Structures are given as structure tokens and as C-alpha cells.
């Protein structure tokens, strides 16, 4: 185990109290906390170098542009992409909509299929539904196995020549399952389909290499990886981005605007209509720098350790059911569970009273919740700043829930 305990002081919120207890934050799959380095990068930008980018003919604007483009280069490097392959936007949801509208709306036709999985987040379902209304394409879903792995055989058997897009999460935000993206990408490419990856949960928690994955498009959010809200990333292979139509139009993304039509700027600017999230990009750059200093190997092994410990201790609680793989090598640190007949929402309230923040509900994955026959689950999720004693507190809290609900 790589001990990251010493970094806790980098996160001011961990000094806060919650309902009379020290805050124990176990909801990083929803959003992560932010280190001082990130908070200061944002404040510092507004205090010293704030200006609009790509527009000004003055030094301040040039400095802001440099900072913004350096952030892009850093983010691109983090996933082993070229800087022209990285477009900033509002978040994973926004990035997946960009692919669905930019690529899907212009290329899908009746008879075409989009292959998703049953463990997708709404962000990787609803955009395809919206676009299929306009295009007549059909959505099909690959199931998961009894051990909560993606059923890759079933997926491959669904992959006929009508499938034009395969869009799959690299890591489930409910089950924790890490999916074999490279394997799926190879199968998708053999069938002539594009491989789109929802990496909202993967990029924050493990090394993601778009080349190794052979992803055609890949989406993630800043706020889940120590960065600010209001920013996300769409990665796309250069030739695909160059061929793709922009979904949004406006300033910055044009080469020329005539009264009845326009031509587009070079990638990635074509996909960044209007004033971009400048301070947020710089904040995300600082978050990536922070993660790079920790090292993604260390991040992953810290989480493997915590998750193993959590699975172990939670598994020992009577009447507790975990939804997700048991092998920590094939899963991330989101642990979904139910406890006897205590509703997850009640579990969350009882834990909250002890300062422990976990999430309860369908986790924006209703099709999964329905197929699990668990319309709601409780979910604890870990990140770099969590420690084993957080798990101990969680276990104590769950014992208290059993007590209050009189579960024998």
C-alpha cells in the first residue's frame, strides 16, 4: 500500500465538522474534494491574469491564453493524447452529448444501432436516446454477468454490422467494475463501429491511455478528479474530430461567418464555442499536476488497498449485500450495498448524523438499478484523501443503523 495519509492536509474541507463529528467524505464518485493547489490556481488566475483568451491583442490576454493552452497540453499529456485532440467543455455529460449530436446526428440512420451496456450512467444513455429520435437509430444494451463484470461475450454477439457506435463506461459508478475497453474497442473496430468511452470514473482513479485503449472518443469531468466544477474534456482521435461537425456554434469556433453560413476553426477550437471555462481549465490543469505528483500508480494502489479493506469489513456485516466484483484488481473504489431491509436513504441519514457522507439512490443509473432489482443502493466511494479509519467509521455507523432499525 502506498500511504497517502500525509496529503489530507492539502484538502481544507477535511478539517470541517459535520453534525458534531469530523467530516468523513465517502462520496467522491459523485464529486471529489479539492486540494489547496487547485483552489489557489483558480483564485490566482482571477487575481492576477484574468482576461478572455484567443482574442486579445494585449499581453494579459496572451498570458491567459498561454495558461489555458498549457492546461490543455497537460490534460492531453495525462491521457497520452495530442493537444489538438482535447476539447474543453462543461463535463462528461456535455462531452457525450457533443459526440451524440456532432457525430451521431450527422451519421446515424434508421436501421443503425448504438450498443451500450446495462451499467451505463444516464449521461451515456439519454444523449443517444435524444439523437435516436432524430435519426431512427436503435439502442441495444449488453448485459453484465452474475459476478458484475460486463458480459463481453454477449456484447460481441450483439456487435453486428448495423452497430455504428459502441459506447461503454470504463468504470461503473455503481458496481465499480472496470471494463476491458481495449478488448471491446478491438471488437467494435472489427465490426466497423466507433468506440466511445465514458471515462468519468476512470480518469480520476487509474492511468488512462487513449492510445492503449484505442478509444475513438473519450469523455471525463474535472470535478471528479480534484478539479473544479464547470469543466470537462472531450478527447477524440484527430481525424475524427476534424471530420466531425460542431454541436454548438458561436464565437471562437469559427473561421469565417457569412450571413447564411460559416466555416469552422481548426480543431480543437471548433468544439469550443464561446468564451470557454478559462479559470476552470487552469484549475483542472492544477489538479492534473497534483495527481501527476502523486502518481496514478500510487493513487490506484492506495484505492485498491482501501477498497480491499472496505470489502473485507463490510462483507463481515450481517445482512449486508455488496453489488459489484469482489476482486479488487478488476474494480474501482465505488462500493454499492444494501443492508437488511433498511432503506439506503435511511442508512445515509443515520451515517450523516455521524459526519459520514455517502450517497443513496439510483446513482443516475436507473436501468442498472432496475436490473439489479435494487431500486436504491447505498454507495461509499473512495479517493486519495480517504484512509482506513474512514472505513472503520463507516462500519461503526452501519452497526448503529442496524441498532436503530432493530435488525437482529
Amino acid at each position, binding site marked *: 500500500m502506498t500511504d497517502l495519509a500525509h496529503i489530507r492536509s492539502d484538502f481544507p474541507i477535511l478539517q470541517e465538522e459535520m453534525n458534531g463529528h469530523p467530516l468523513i467524505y465517502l462520496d467522491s464518485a459523485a464529486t471529489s474534494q479539492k486540494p489547496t493547489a487547485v483552489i489557489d490556481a483558480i483564485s490566482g488566475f482571477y487575481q492576477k491574469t484574468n482576461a478572455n483568451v484567443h482574442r486579445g491583442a494585449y499581453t494579459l490576454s496572451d498570458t491567459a491564453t498561454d495558461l489555458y493552452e498549457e492546461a490543455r497540453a497537460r490534460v492531453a499529456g495525462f491521457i497520452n493524447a495530442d493537444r489538438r485532440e482535447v476539447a474543453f467543455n462543461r463535463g462528461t455529460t456535455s462531452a457525450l452529448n457533443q459526440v451524440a449530436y456532432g457525430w451521431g446526428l450527422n451519421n446515424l440512420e434508421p436501421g443503425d444501432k448504438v450498443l451500450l451496456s446495462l451499467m451505463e450512467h444516464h449521461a451515456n444513455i439519454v444523449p443517444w436516446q435524444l439523437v435516436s429520435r432524430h435519426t431512427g437509430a436503435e439502442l441495444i444494451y449488453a448485459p453484465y454477468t452474475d459476478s458484475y463484470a460486463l458480459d463481453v461475450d454477449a456484447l460481441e454477439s450483439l456487435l453486428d454490422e448495423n452497430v455504428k457506435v459502441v459506447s461503454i463506461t470504463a468504470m461503473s459508478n455503481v458496481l465499480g467494475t472496470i471494463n476491458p475497453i481495449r478488448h471491446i474497442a478491438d471488437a467494435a473496430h472489427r465490426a466497423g463501429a466507433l468506440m466511445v468511452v465514458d471515462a468519468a470514473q476512470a480518469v480520476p482513479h487509474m492511468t488512462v491511455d487513449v492510445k492503449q485503449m484505442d478509444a475513438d472518443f473519450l469523455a471525463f469531468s474535472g470535478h471528479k478528479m480534484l478539479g473544479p466544477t464547470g469543466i470537462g474534456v472531450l478527447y477524440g482521435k484527430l481525424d475524427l474530430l476534424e471530420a466531425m461537425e460542431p454541436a454548438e456554434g458561436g464565437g471562437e469556433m469559427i473561421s469565417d461567418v457569412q450571413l447564411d453560413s460559416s466555416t469552422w476553426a481548426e480543431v480543437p477550437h471548433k468544439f469550443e464555442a464561446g468564451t470557454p471555462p478559462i479559470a476552470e481549465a487552469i484549475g483542472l490543469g492544477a489538479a492534473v499536476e497534483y495527481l501527476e505528483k502523486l502518481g496514478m500508480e500510487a493513487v490506484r494502489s492506495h484505492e485498491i488497498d482501501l477498497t480491499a479493506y472496505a470489502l473485507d469489513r463490510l462483507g463481515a456485516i450481517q445482512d449486508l449485500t455488496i453489488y459489484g466484483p469482489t476482486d479488487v484488481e478488476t474494480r474501482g473504489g465505488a462500493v454499492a450495498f444494501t443492508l437488511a431491509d*433498511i*432503506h439506503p*436513504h*435511511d442508512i445515509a441519514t443515520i451515517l*450523516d448524523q455521524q459526519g459520514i457522507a455517502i450517497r443513496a439512490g439510483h446513482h443516475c443509473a436507473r436501468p442498472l438499478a432496475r436490473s439489479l432489482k435494487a*431500486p*436504491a443502493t447505498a454507495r461509499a466511494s473512495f479517493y486519495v484523501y480517504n484512509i482506513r479509519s474512514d472505513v472503520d467509521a463507516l462500519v461503526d455507523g452501519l452497526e*448503529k443503523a442496524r441498532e*436503530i*432499525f432493530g435488525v437482529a
Partner: protein
Amino acid sequence: MSLNELYREVILDHYRAPRHHNHLDSPDGSAQGNNPLCGDEVTIELNLNGDRVSDVAAIGVGCSISQASASMMSEAVFGKTREEIDELVRKFKVMMAIEESAEEVVDPDRPGSALGDLEALQGVRKFPVRIKCADLPWITLEQALESAE
């Protein structure tokens, strides 16, 4: 804020053994309510005899608060007139601090004192996150009544 005040015995009892929990054969009115954020679901069905609720069903899935609230509500409205129910809804909302009361001064320690058994839900008032759970069946009830008109 005490958890024991929230999770009173009677609430857990209604959660585990919900009353009026079978669908009506051909209800005069019905409505489905759901809370998309936490996933709570409640269906309310009603039979009316003139102005009076002659039968009621409250069926759902969700947290103890929403389901107990539905169960206790079904008991409370059974046999009541439309007017009596309106008064009950008003008192409930005052207890939950969803509405201010124009008439009576509410005892902050016992805001539900006018509500009989339903008083057990008054602990929810101190858990703002959960008020919408307790409220869901009542909103659904009003819709079911409307649909019966």
C-alpha cells in the same frame, strides 16, 4: 438532532407493516408520485362514497419515512370527508414547516400535536433532506383526489 426522534417505533412499524397496502379493484381516483432524486415511489388509490373516502390504498417502494408517511396517511384519511382531509393536509404541512400556520401557534417541541398518530413524523422536520420523503404521499393524495373529481 436525535436519530431516535426521527426513527420512532411507530414509524418503523408502519414501514415494515404498511397499512392499506393492497390495490383497490376499481378505484374512483388514483395517482402515482415519485421522487426522481431518491427514487421513492408511492401510488395512492381511492374510493369515494359521496364526499367521503370509503376505501384507500397506499402502495410504494422507498425509504422508511416515505412509506411510513404513506401508511399513516392511509389510516388517517380512511372514512374522512374531503373537507376533513383538506384540514389534515394543512395541519401536516404546518407540522413539517412546509406551510406557515395562519391560525394556530405551533409548539416547536410538538408541531404535530394536532395530528394524532401522525405526530410521530414530526421528527422529520429537523431533517430538511428528508421532508420531501414525508411529503410525497400527501402530494400524491391530493392528485388522487383531483383525479376522482
